[in-house]
């Protein structure tokens, strides 16, 4: 048969138009593999923590969370004081940091003269750039002496009758830890709140101003309520930071396995316990107990962070708000 080429039969594609592009699948493969490194790392990290924490979990069960005994000699471990100390120091930090951070965010978005906004925002960002260990150094040699001389005596005079301010103040204490943490998390809360407030539609503000509200009233009654979930998210991101912060806290909190109500007394946090004791842990069970502490810390911070992000996303959907600050 001879093949008479007809109009309906298209000629085969010449070589010049044929597929010869091997680069695309290769490129996609490489960057996908690199991206998969992240979940893989996280998986390995969690698995390692869990596997190594197993012996302590088996031995102490849920009692690990509630027992206050931490006795390496008797090989009895309970993490209640550190969990308590972690939560209290972080909450204390929030109490101090939230008004400051919101002040920064509101001032910079609503009231500050335009030319001051960038420099002030930069200074606040710099607070986040100061290494943790430098905060610790400053806490030991500047903050604690200051507290001892100027801040604690009037505090005790005014509030000494409450259980929160009882006992002798030696320096290293929950209070010192909380203040240092507060200074450290202000930039995170401020940065994210600022972005949240900026993401509030201008119409909200203008509507309030149009009704004759003063600028403050517009902020208070229109902007902040609209951004509330996002601001709560920002605060929780700060909380997540505070919970996991290690060095500065370790250096000023006193590192004592104790549960006390007074913020003037030393305390302990989970991160500090790991930092102090991990390389000294001589027995397998001791090490395993520290792994369990690490696992608890990890689970709490992940939960707080995940919740925080959900809240921030509700205000500024999809935008990668706060990813720069975090």
């Amino acid at each position, binding site marked *: 048969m001879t093949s008479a080429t007809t109009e309906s039969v*298209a*000629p085969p594609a010449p070589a*010049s*138009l044929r*597929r*010869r592009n091997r680069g695309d699948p290769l490129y996609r493969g490489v960057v996908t593999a690199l991206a998969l490194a992240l979940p893989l790392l996280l998986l390995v990290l969690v698995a390692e923590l869990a596997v190594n924490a197993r012996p302590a979990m088996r031995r102490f069960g849920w009692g690990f969370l509630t027992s206050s005994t931490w006795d390496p000699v008797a090989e009895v471990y309970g993490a209640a004081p550190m969990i308590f100390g972690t939560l209290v120091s972080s909450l204390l930090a929030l109490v101090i940091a939230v008004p400051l951070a919101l002040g920064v965010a509101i001032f910079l978005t609503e009231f500050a003269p335009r030319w001051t906004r960038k420099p002030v925002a930069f200074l606040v960002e710099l607070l986040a750039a100061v290494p943790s260990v430098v905060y610790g150094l400053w806490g030991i040699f500047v903050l604690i002496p200051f507290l001892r001389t100027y801040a604690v005596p009037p505090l005790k005079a005014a509030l000494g009758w409450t259980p929160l301010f009882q006992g002798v103040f030696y320096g290293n204490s929950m209070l010192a830890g909380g203040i240092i943490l507060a200074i450290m998390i202000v930039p995170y809360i401020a940065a994210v709140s600022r972005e949240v407030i900026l993401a509030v539609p201008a119409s909200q503000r203008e509507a309030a101003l149009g009704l004759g509200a003063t600028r403050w009233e517009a902020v208070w009654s229109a902007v902040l309520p609209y951004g509330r979930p996002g601001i709560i998210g920002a605060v929780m991101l700060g909380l997540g930071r505070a919970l996991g912060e290690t060095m500065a806290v370790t250096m000023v909190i006193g590192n004592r396995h104790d549960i006390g109500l007074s913020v003037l007394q030393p305390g302990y946090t989970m991160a500090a316990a790991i930092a102090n004791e991990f390389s000294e842990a001589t027995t397998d069970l001791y090490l395993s107990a520290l792994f369990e502490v690490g696992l608890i810390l990890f689970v709490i911070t992940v939960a707080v962070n995940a919740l925080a992000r959900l809240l921030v996303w509700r205000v500024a959907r999809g935008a990668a708000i706060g990813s720069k600050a975090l």
Partner: protein
Amino acid sequence: MAPVDATLLLATDRLTALFHRHAAVKEVSLLFPSNTVTAIIGPSGCGKSTLLRCLNRMHELSDGAWVTGKVLLEGVDIYGGEVDAVQVRRRVGMVFQRPTPFPTMSIFDNVAAGLRVDGRLPTSQVATAVERALQQAALWDEVKDRLHTSAVALSGGQQQRLCIARAVAPQPDVLLLDEPTASLDPAGTQRIEELCHELKRRYTIVIVTHNMQQAARVSDYTAFLYLGQLIEAGRTRDLFTKPRLEQTEAYLTGRFG
């Protein structure tokens, strides 16, 4: 319709372009004779840009975009299974509405960008090709002394001619212009229109425009699209002076669109 002849380079055969289930171009069959300028006109949203983007397989880059029917380049269906879209685009160059110089590259490197894709051309030939392309785009005299400065510093009209130079540097067979003067001032527009007359000696040009006067000025053939359908196509002179269909006449006289 244009007569089918041996020099036929580009044609569509019942081409339908879809976004998900919505057809933006419906069963369009068109012939684009070699070394002519064909204008595609129609009201905005009529699918003229989509049609153009099908001719070098740019359409399929959008989300959910696909086509049925054929686009024939020298008789070969560019949507055929063996054909690589990347190779098609090297033979069918394109210039967009807004100038898109690569901001990180110099003027020279912008024009050389398409030449270097394969990395096969020796350096001396690249320089020759860049000069040739810039001359074809009537830009050489304005930039020959600053070839290695940033392309972003050029004016809008210069940038657009740079993009034309970049598109013609690899010597494609076809040049697609998607409203190339939409963001230019009258002087810039005029230069691009003059260029079309020059460039058709070497390339087959398809230009999308919403400006009927422009179509009348630059093109040899015109196709009128409305709601994704080809209403009428023919020699520009004929179409503008004695359109066969009332719909075409209505559009040309500004009664809608």
